């Protein structure tokens, strides 16, 4: 799978790796039973410290997304997909909440914010409709 790591966006790199892997599982890019790259492979591929990748994998194991397979490495668990889908929902909720919080802080009214959200959603669905 493809990762996009941005050391500057305020989210810790291990968290970015774990999130993106969860999103990939939720979308079906990674499937149950598939092996993920070794810590060494992935850290070299992303050019990040191996401990960072190890930490992301540890978190994913604790969350039940990854499982050790004796002698071979880490695989995506059987119930990873449903776990990741509900995780994705709460992550997106969290991020929306922080944007909405910022909007309220800047002094926008709830009506104005709703209008913006609707406009943006409409724009999005239009551009999706335009693409082949």
């Amino acid at each position, binding site marked *: 799978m493809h990762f996009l790591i941005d050391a500057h966006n305020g989210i810790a790199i291990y968290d970015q790796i774990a999130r993106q892997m969860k999103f990939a599982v939720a979308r079906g890019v990674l499937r149950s039973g598939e092996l993920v790259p070794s810590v060494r492979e992935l*850290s070299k591929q992303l050019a990040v410290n191996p401990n960072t990748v190890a930490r992301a994998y540890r978190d994913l194991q604790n969350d039940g997304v990854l499982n050790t397979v004796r002698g071979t490495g880490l695989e995506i668990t059987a119930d990873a997909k449903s776990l990741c889908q509900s995780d994705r929902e709460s992550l997106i909720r969290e991020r929306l909440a922080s944007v909405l919080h910022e909007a309220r802080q800047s002094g926008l009214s709830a009506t104005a914010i709703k209008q913006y959200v609707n406009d943006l959603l409409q724009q999005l669905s239009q551009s999706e409709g335009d693409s082949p």
Partner: protein
Amino acid sequence: MKPVFSIRNVTKKFGKQIAVDDLSLEATPGQVIALLGDNGAGKSTSIKILLGLLRADSGDAEVLGMDSRRQSQEIRRRIGYVPDKPALYDWMTVTEIGWFASGFYPYGYMENYAEMVREFKLPETQKIKNLSRGMQAKVSLALAMAHKPELLILDEPTSGLDAVVRREFLESMVDVAAEGRTVLLASHQIHEVERVADTVAIMRQSELLTFDRLEVLKNEVRELVITHSSEETFEFPFPEKRIATRHDGRQSVHLVRDLTPSQMATLENHEQTVHLEQRTPSLEEIFVGYMSGEIRKENEKAPATEPEISA
């Protein structure tokens, strides 16, 4: 765990100029330590003292249990070192310089060197002087890594090189770390450092300002933006926790470290505070804060610079 290298209370002067002032640093196996600092902060001098290429005026330095003053040659055989301006015999070809260097190292050096030459896509039969700067840097890196050193020291190895070469250097460093070996990297490329380093040392004007795990640093440092009721000067009540401050009209921005919840509450409820926001700064912002903040020294009367950052 035995340290891979240690620097204890090292001071070095060039004439009257203090280059390194009472520096102490230590590395454990597998660490990737980034040494950050502006030009002339003492990074290269510290590295050269560690390698025994320069003598400290006082204090001790040790690498792999060997004394930097007395065992410089043996240290340089055991570790890998990529200087900022590699001095290579440029009339040799890529392969020839590998053969030449292999004479100084144990058996197996040439095989590893040849493998890296292939991996870096270096032209084996070309003379060094006809290579681009990026390729020369890669030759220097391959020479420094071919004996699989327990410690790899890089002194701004990629300044002025293109993104592709910098990426290859990063990948090599990650590989070294993945094998449990140690990397000490002096660099200006802070966003790259943020990816690969687990420990950060920040030096400024010969002094070490902070030496911490990156995680700890990012957990403890916060940027506070305070909006005040008037343009009256705001005296930050916890100067010992402050790295840098900037005033901007009715707002002041403070980079603080390790502020307690009760101190935060004091700031929030301060009579001059209208609004307080906090955010997690990037390593680059932390670095800039340390570079522009006041210099604090216990046994000095007056601060050397103004505590203000010019915005």
